[in-house]
């Protein structure tokens, strides 16, 4: 139907083009009257033109057919079905639809339904059949600039901090997989790559692969999804730096029966036991474990409370030279609380989030005198963000953290953050950061005053927003 209309309108257009030119040409020829030779030339020119037009129509017809074939698995848009009794008066807008032959309609409906199944294999992003089975591919660029003074942990003035390629797809009826490969300034790193088994019995959710451990909140969030440019001081001091607890292993979660109105989930994870400068696996049997318990409650339609406690254990890193490194452990405990407010009617303009996380670290290590000792350090951050309107968000963060290996050294800092969103797919952010950073001896501090700015851009499929 659509093809017919298109082809006929093409012919019409072409014809009107030809006829539209005719008067002009005849006027032109009127000047040289009774001139037979140009008349003949005109006829042959016209014939030539009609031939090329016919060729063009045939070509377009072929292209249309190809397009149509490629589209046939999508819900057909040209099957203009009408309610049998709807009154469409001739001459009204869209009355052409009334002339859709019922046979065409009948043949289209089953086709649409039969092919619907294949269309649902991926989460969007694909536009033609050929791409339907490709994973959803996205790329997130994270450009960071830094100015100001920081004598303790300086960062480069300008850097493409990270380019994260994400690939996500449903593997089969029982599983889906997510992979995030991050290209940094120093190399390539599989930030996460795991398969999630969604159809296990007994309500279990199993993830296998390399992943960010379910240790608190900020540890699970990718750099580009953070509400700040950097990570809190405590992440660097106690929880293994930028990548945090991020290791190869397995994760099992289960909903826990809870009082009415509460959602509770328990997660148990086993890892190889290697996470940056936090955990190190000295022997194959030196595994790391992480446990997380989450409680969530809707306080109202627009307000909710999210609480969690976490535990992580592994062998302390950096003790390869110690006599029996497998007996040195780092135990980490954490508690997190998040309060969100987002009025549903104005969700894209106004919202507020307050989050605080507390961390306790107990690290076995060798003292300066090569004796076994355990350092007990505490760290925390509190952050708030408020969306002013569709494009602007302001935020702040307070940091305080001891050093894992030397609990007497404590860093303190605060940040102010301003974010601008040109669209959902790009983000510009500025952050002022002050740090009172401990150096070498307790009581010695170095002040850091820095201004950071960040450009984030997203290509490709929509990633789901983390909650």
């Amino acid at each position: 139907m659509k093809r017919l209309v298109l082809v006929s309108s093409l012919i019409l257009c072409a014809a009107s083009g030809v006829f539209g030119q005719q008067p002009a040409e005849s006027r032109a020829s009127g000047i040289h009257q009774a001139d037979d030779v140009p008349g003949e030339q005109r006829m042959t020119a016209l014939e030539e033109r009609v031939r090329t037009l016919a060729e063009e129509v045939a070509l377009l017809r072929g292209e249309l057919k190809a397009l149509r074939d490629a589209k046939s698995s999508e819900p057909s848009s040209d099957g203009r079905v009408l309610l049998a009794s709807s009154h469409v008066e001739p001459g009204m807008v869209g009355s052409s639809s009334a002339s859709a032959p019922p046979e065409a309609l009948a043949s289209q409906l089953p086709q649409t339904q039969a092919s619907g199944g294949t269309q649902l294999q991926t989460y969007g992003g694909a536009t033609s059949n050929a791409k339907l089975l490709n994973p959803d591919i996205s790329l997130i660029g994270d450009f960071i600039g830094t100015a100001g003074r920081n004598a303790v942990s300086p960062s480069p003035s300008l850097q493409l901090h990270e380019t994260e390629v994400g690939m996500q797809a449903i593997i089969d009826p029982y599983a889906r997989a997510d992979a995030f490969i991050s290209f940094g300034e120093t190399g390539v790193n599989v930030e996460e790559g795991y398969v999630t088994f969604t159809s296990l019995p007994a309500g279990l959710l199993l993830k296998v692969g390399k992943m960010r451990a379910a240790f608190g909140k900020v540890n699970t969030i990718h750099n580009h999804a953070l509400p700040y440019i950097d990570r809190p001081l405590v992440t660097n001091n106690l929880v293994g730096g930028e990548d945090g607890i991020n290791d190869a292993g397995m994760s099992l979660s289960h909903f826990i029966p809870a009082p009415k109105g509460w959602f509770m989930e328990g997660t148990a994870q086993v890892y190889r036991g290697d996470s940056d400068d936090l955990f190190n696996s000295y022997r194959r049997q030196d595994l790391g474990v992480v446990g997380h318990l989450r409680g969530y409650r809707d306080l109202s339609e627009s307000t909710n409370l999210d609480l969690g406690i976490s535990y992580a254990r592994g062998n302390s890193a950096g003790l390869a030279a110690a006599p029996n490194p497998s007996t040195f452990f780092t135990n980490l405990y954490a508690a997190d609380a998040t309060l969100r407010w987002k009025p549903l009617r104005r969700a894209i303009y106004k919202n507020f989030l307050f989050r605080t996380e507390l961390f306790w670290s107990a690290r076995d290590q060798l003292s300066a005198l090569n004796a076994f000792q355990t350092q007990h350090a505490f760290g925390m951050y509190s952050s708030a963000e408020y969306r002013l309107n569709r494009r602007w968000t302001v935020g702040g963060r307070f940091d305080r953290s001891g050093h894992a290996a030397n609990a007497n050294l404590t860093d303190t800092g605060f940040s102010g953050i301003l974010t601008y969103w040109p669209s959902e797919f790009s983000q510009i952010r500025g952050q002022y950061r002050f740090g009172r950073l401990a150096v070498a001896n307790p009581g010695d501090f170095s002040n850091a005053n820095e201004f950071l700015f960040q450009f984030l851009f997203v290509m490709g499929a929509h990633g789901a927003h983390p909650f």
Partner: protein
Amino acid sequence: MHRCSFGPRLTAVFTALAFSMSLLGPLIARADSKLKIITATTDLASLAQEVGGDKIEVESIARGYQDPHFVDAKPSFLLKLKRADLLIVVGLDLEIGWLPPLITQSTNPKIQVGAPGYLDASRFAKILEIPTGQVTRAEGDVHPLGNPHYWLDPENGLRIAKGIADKLSEMRSSDAAYFAQRYADFEHRLKQADERWLAEMKPYAGRKIVTYHRSWPNFAEHFHLNVVGYVEPRPGIPPSPQHTVELIHLMKRENVKVIVVEPYFDLKTPNAVARETGAQVLVLPPSVGGEKEITDYFKLFDYDISKLKQAFDAAH
């Protein structure tokens, strides 16, 4: 001795009892319990309710006054999804920002994408604005599979209801006759209502309107309205001063007197445009539940059409 042998026997009896209960339990539950349906939006919930009657329990994740593109994937939804027998989604990437993680984490094999309990309503509907040629985000947040606001055409409502009725019959064949009868009744009532709506809107055929977001192509096509512009410069992009000026010129030139705004958008720009052009800003819910009195699919059109009529009449 006597006492000792009693223990294992009792245990065996209890075990057998528990085992048979666990086997019987689902069977008993299956016979008279309602099918639990979760829908992405309230409109799908209303359509499911129409054909499912008292054989189903249905609940929507998004509220009618909420932007269905931006819903938080709250864990409280997980508990509902975990218990669901059927999940009905709008599809066409409308829920891409929040539904996939909910489905994955629901630990419910029945509603995983492609499983029998996952129903994409867009399969049944007539879809408009499917982009042809190259699709880029220079056009804003385009939906490569077509405009997902397709439920705002009663004909699509009927098609979706048919799809749901077929699915329900497939899942609960013992009630197939019930669902078929419910559908036939719904079809009859909807056709009658549609006749009335079309008649009410007939005097306004061809009227030009401006809408905030591209939520209304199916509605406009069915009721013969002419959407000539949008407050958003591109889908999902907030209004810009330059575009607003162009829009004002366009509305003056085309003599557009009505600006339709979805309830979840800010009214500042539409009000400013209205002041400049003498047009009226009309907050029109695109979904069931968008206003308190819009309790089902019929009332959605009743409400929207009466509001539109008032606005068009006031423009004269």
